[in-house]
């Protein structure tokens, strides 16, 4: 009797938890991950399988930075400048928004997972146009 009471309580708890979790999951599934108005929004996928980039972009960039800075090999598939060129959105006046500003591409996910990458202390946050 006691055990069945326990299990019922557990199931109720699980149900309550699931009820809370489902809307959050739905919201995540609905979000498009790319920022509206960015070049990336018109592309079919990222520079590799989008799910792969989503999971492993930090590793790719960490490898890439040593290849570029130390070995001088800039031919790699992945680059932070490439991310920014593609994922920066423009505001109403056509000016690029920094990718690390609120609700923009980099910030939105990193804020959600409470990660604070130091990339943009040194790297620019908008595509660079040089004459």
């Amino acid at each position, binding site marked *: 009797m006691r055990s069945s009471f326990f299990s019922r309580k557990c199931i109720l708890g699980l149900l309550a938890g699931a009820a809370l979790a489902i809307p959050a999951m739905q919201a995540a599934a609905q979000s498009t991950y790319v920022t509206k108005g960015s070049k990336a929004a018109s592309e079919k996928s990222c520079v590799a399988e989008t799910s*792969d980039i989503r999971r*492993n972009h930090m*590793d*790719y960039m960490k*490898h890439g*930075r*040593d*290849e*570029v*800075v*130390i*070995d*001088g*090999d*800039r*031919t*790699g598939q992945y680059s932070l*400048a490439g991310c920014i060129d593609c994922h920066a959105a423009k505001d109403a006046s056509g000016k690029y928004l920094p990718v690390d500003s609120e609700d923009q591409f980099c910030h939105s996910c990193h804020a959600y997972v409470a990660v604070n990458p130091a990339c943009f*202390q*040194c*790297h*620019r*946050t*908008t595509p*660079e146009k*040089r004459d």
Partner: protein
Amino acid sequence: MSKQSDQPGMNRRQLIGGVIAATGAVTIAPGLILHAVAGNPQQKKGASSEKRWGMVIDANKCADGCSACVDACNDEHNLTGFDRPATDAQWIRTVKLKDKQTGHINRMVMLCQHCEFPPCVDVCPTNASFKRVDGIVLVDRHRCIGCRYCMMACPYKARSFIHEALADQSVNAPRGKGCVESCTLCVHRVDAGKTTTACQDACQKEGHAAILFGDLNDPKSRISQVLKSNNSTQIRADLELNTGVRYLNL
């Protein structure tokens, strides 16, 4: 650049066997493996150890009142300052030397000398200050902790420390607060296969042509020819750092 996984792969042993086979390793006794030197240097991408990039600066051609090279460097790497000359970043600067006895004034530019034996690399506690295989001395800002030992060690005062937060850096030179930096010999241009630096282009455009960049290891390069046929000087040659930047008529 393999995907990182938290789980050990089932085919890990196969992979290790494959790697050993691929590098041509030979087991001469249990536990003792002889590795063949792997890789063809010509197939390697990026910087090549067959080159040594350097620069020749002709002090006679460096014109008084001209700062074209400094401006070009600032523009190329977006070195914006805060109107505080004592702390603003400076990768290349013009210097006037006056002989007190004769009154003769020499003009030249001072920048990172890209030493073969760089003191900044010797003292760096994090290996952030390093020399690329092609002789270019750089700071890896991913590793720099901003201790400024390298600034103390550099006999040429070539390095700057960034005291304030920056924005809108150039893709050519990502740079930020808390790191030390100096002339990169326009490494972004070198990696792109270009043969001139921003300062050289600017000096040429002004009609002075006091700066020449090139490969010191290639006897046919213009810089090697100039060094062969002229008497050049290393600044503080007594330190035996074998600088990559040489001066004429100094």
